[in-house]
Structure formats: C-alpha cells, structure tokens
C-alpha cells in the first residue's frame, strides 16, 4: 500500500490537516533558519529550537525554470513531459525567506509582493523499493482572492 512520505524529514509538519513549514530559531540571537539546523549561522550559537514558520507568506522574488534540470533533479518527468515551474523566495511570518517551487509558471501570474500559501504536494512516485510511495514536497501558490 502506498504512503505519502515527505521528501525530507523536518521540512514541514506531516501528516497534518494544516501543514506548516518548519525551521529553527536561535535561542541566543532569535534569528530563524530554514531548513532547521542545530547551529546558528548568525551568531554561532549551538542552541536552536524547532519552530513553525507558518503556511502563508509574501513573494519576495521569483523566476521560472524553463528547462528540465540535469541530475540531481529527480522527478517523474521526462524531457517530453517536463513542465516549466516557478521558483521564488517567500517571506514567512516566522522571520525568514524560504526558497520554494511555485505553482504559477507564467510571468503574468507572478508578482513581487503577492500573498502566497503553502501546499504540500506529491512530487514523484518512489519506484526504487516497489512501494509506490508518493514523495511529498512543499510548494507555494497564490492566495486566491475571496
């Protein structure tokens, strides 16, 4: 039976009805890092704690990846099925800008300053152990106008 497995432990809360990105905050200087790390790259302290960074943020910069990357890129796509994807930095309320894939892949759908929300999505199917597990990653998409 296939499961939904995070691509890497500790990037986001999972499984969860309302997943949050996870990072670390320095006990000494309060700077935030993503992904979480045991040391602080601001002050060098070795005391950090895991914190939730939130599930919404503001787009700080963006681009569109138009060609399929070489390895280590590892998706289910082939050169024929590859679809361009957005990449951007999203400013999180937790106090850090996180680099992420973005759902929109056309320039007209992306704008610096737009509100974005976190999605946890299946990225590829793991065939290596025959389990057929869905490998889950994070992505941001525009917050729809109400």
């Amino acid at each position, binding site marked *: 039976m296939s499961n939904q497995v995070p*691509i*890497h432990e500790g*990037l986001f809360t999972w499984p969860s009805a309302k997943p949050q990105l996870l*990072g670390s905050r320095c006990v000494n200087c309060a*700077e*935030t*890092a*993503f*992904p979480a790390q045991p040391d602080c*790259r*601001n002050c060098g302290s070795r005391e950090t704690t895991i914190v939730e960074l939130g599930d919404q943020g503001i787009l*700080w*910069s*963006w*681009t*569109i*990846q*138009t*060609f399929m*990357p*070489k*390895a*280590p*890129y*590892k*998706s289910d796509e082939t050169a024929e099925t590859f679809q361009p*994807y957005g*990449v*951007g*930095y999203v*400013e999180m309320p937790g*106090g*850090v*800008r*996180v*680099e*992420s*894939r973005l759902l929109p892949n056309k*320039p007209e759908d992306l704008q*610096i300053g737009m509100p974005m929300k976190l999605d946890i999505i299946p*990225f590829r199917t793991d065939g290596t152990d025959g389990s057929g597990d869905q490998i889950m*990653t994070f992505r941001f998409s525009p917050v729809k106008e109400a």
Partner: protein
Amino acid sequence: MDVAIIGIGLHRFGRSPGLSGMQQGASAVRNALADAGLSWKDMQFAYGGSQDAGNADALVNELGLTGLQFTNIWNGCATGGSSLHAAYSAIKSGEYDVGVVVGFDKHPRGAFNPKPADWGIDEWYGETGMMLTTQFFALKTQRYMHDHGITEESLIRVSEKAFTNGSLTPTAWRQQALSYEEIANSAMISDPLRKYMFCSPAEGGAALIICNADKAHLYSSKPLYLKTAAVRTRHYGSFEVFAPSQAMNVADASTVTASKAAFEQAGIGPEDIDVMQLQDTDSGTEIIHMAENGFCEHGEQEKLLREGATGINGSMPINTDGGCLANGEPVGASGLRQVYEVCVQLRGEGGARQVPNNPKVGYTHVYGAPGLSGVNIITK
C-alpha cells in the same frame, strides 16, 4: 615586498576538441612563460585549479617534473582569484621570487549541475529543482530590478556590449556581435534573463607568471604590479547562490566586502580605475556588480548603460574582451582570464578593443558559489 606580473598566457576559451582541460592549462602556462621569456624550470612555485578537468598539480606531467611546490586550489568560480591571492601572498611573504598561477577547465555542455552534498545542503534541494545557478542569478536580478528601477533594456544593453567586445577580441569564443533585437527576442531561460544574457560553461586555460617586484626588471621590460588581491566570503544575511533560505535583513554581498578591502589595501578608490572586469555570469549580475564594487550607485546603471559608459570608449569600460558572456566560463580559468585581459589593456596591446588614453589602473572581480568574491587591482 611588491608583486609584479611579468608574463600572461591564455589558451583560447570555447571548445578545444581533442585537447583535455589539463592540456589547455599547460598550453596557457607555456604561453605565459614565453611571454615572460622564462622556462618552466625557473618556476619556484605554482598555484592552480580546475573544477572538472583534474588536479592542477598533475600539470607537471606535461610541463616537467622539476620538484617545485605546487598547490591545488578549489574555490568555486573564484578559484582563479583564490589561486592568485595565494601566489600574491607567497611573494609578499618573501618566501619565493617567481612562480606561476594557472587555471583551466573543460565542462560538459549545458548548465552546471552541482551536487547539494558538496555545498552542505540536503538532497531534496537538488531533487526538487532548486540547485541551479541560473535560477539564483535570475532571482537576484528580478529583485534588484524591482528595488532599483532597472528595466529589461539594461539587461539587453549589457549583452549587446559583451558581444560587440567579443567581436573585437581574437581570443574570444563568441566573436559575432548581436543586435539589440536579437538579444531582446532570444528565448527566455529564467525570467528575466534570456538566452543571450547568460554565459555558458566552456573550456580554456589561463596563466600568469608573477614575481617579486624588486626583481621584475630582470625578467621583463613591461612589468605590471598586482597592488592587491582580496578574497572574501559571504556574511550572514547576504543574498547568495545555493541558499534554501535568506535572512530577513539583507546584508552586503561578499563582493562589497572584497571590493572595499581591495580598495583599502591599494589606497585608491573606484574613481581611479581605468578599465575593469566584473563577473558577468549573466547580464543582470554585471549590472548588480557595477554597484556592489562601488563603481556607481544602485539604480544608476540604467542611465550609464544608455549612455554607453561601460563600452570600450566609455568612462568605465567593463569586460573589454566580452567577459564571461562572450568567452564562456571554464570555472578554474575564468578569474585569471579577467586578469589576463586587464594586463593586455594596461600594456596597450588590446588592438581593436584597446581602451583609449593609456589606461594605468585595472580592476578584476570574480564571484563564485556559495557566496565568495575575489578582487584584484593591477597597475602599470
């Protein structure tokens, strides 16, 4: 102890089928030795590096097993800058009188594909398609244009100038000038950067013979002086390549700190520079580096480019040989090509691309992953 550059050599950048990267490095060393009128056995030490073409010290198999001290340097795109800094220090310390700095490379076609683990990053970052230098330069340029009112016109003008300069440079890889329209209509690779706004991984070699300035007259009638070589890494908060996250407060880039250190050590300022090489992995980055190196204010580039200030006959000639855009980037050699070109200009040997009015002070700047910069200042 001052440091002199007494020999310069290049193995033409681009593609050299049938030649290994190392052979291209050896070719550059032979050219530099010939330029200096010296032989390999005169070299007391060597620093060298390559990313994809093997250990630099294996060059002794090509050049001769003379027993010299040979140290391999690897520092990303700033490998050449770091090698030159090491050699500069070796002369400054008084330990050696004369030695060689060499860089070479031979990359496969297409964008670089670095491995996350080599940069202290977990595999997911590469697997999900974010470990690309092209993306970083696009993201940094996108934000910079937003913050400082730079338009696409400036991106196009940088490329236009690069390929014009390439067309005047016999050693350049890309020697065909491209029109504004050709660049503007080229394929979008990573918004806002188009095909003709990116440099490509390539092949080639570059070498310099450097020596104790007190003895330079023994070897050369036209020595140049390496006033300073400064290499700096990123600070917390600077926006750099291969960063899964960025701090909220943006700090000065490594380029700013390397540039300031170099000017301070040399005792001169940006206004004293007559010709310069600024890392142009893409046209957006050249624009950003103009300001980060102190040559203009942020946002001023738009006007400067429209006026042609960065052209060969402009007030601040940048990348007179076409830079990385027209020469491609063999990582190990690229930073030394910059120094080579500045030396050509200071010697007045630039031919069709010679900067007028007898330039006396040159500047080179290289930027590499994951956020380090090397700056050199060279004088007559």
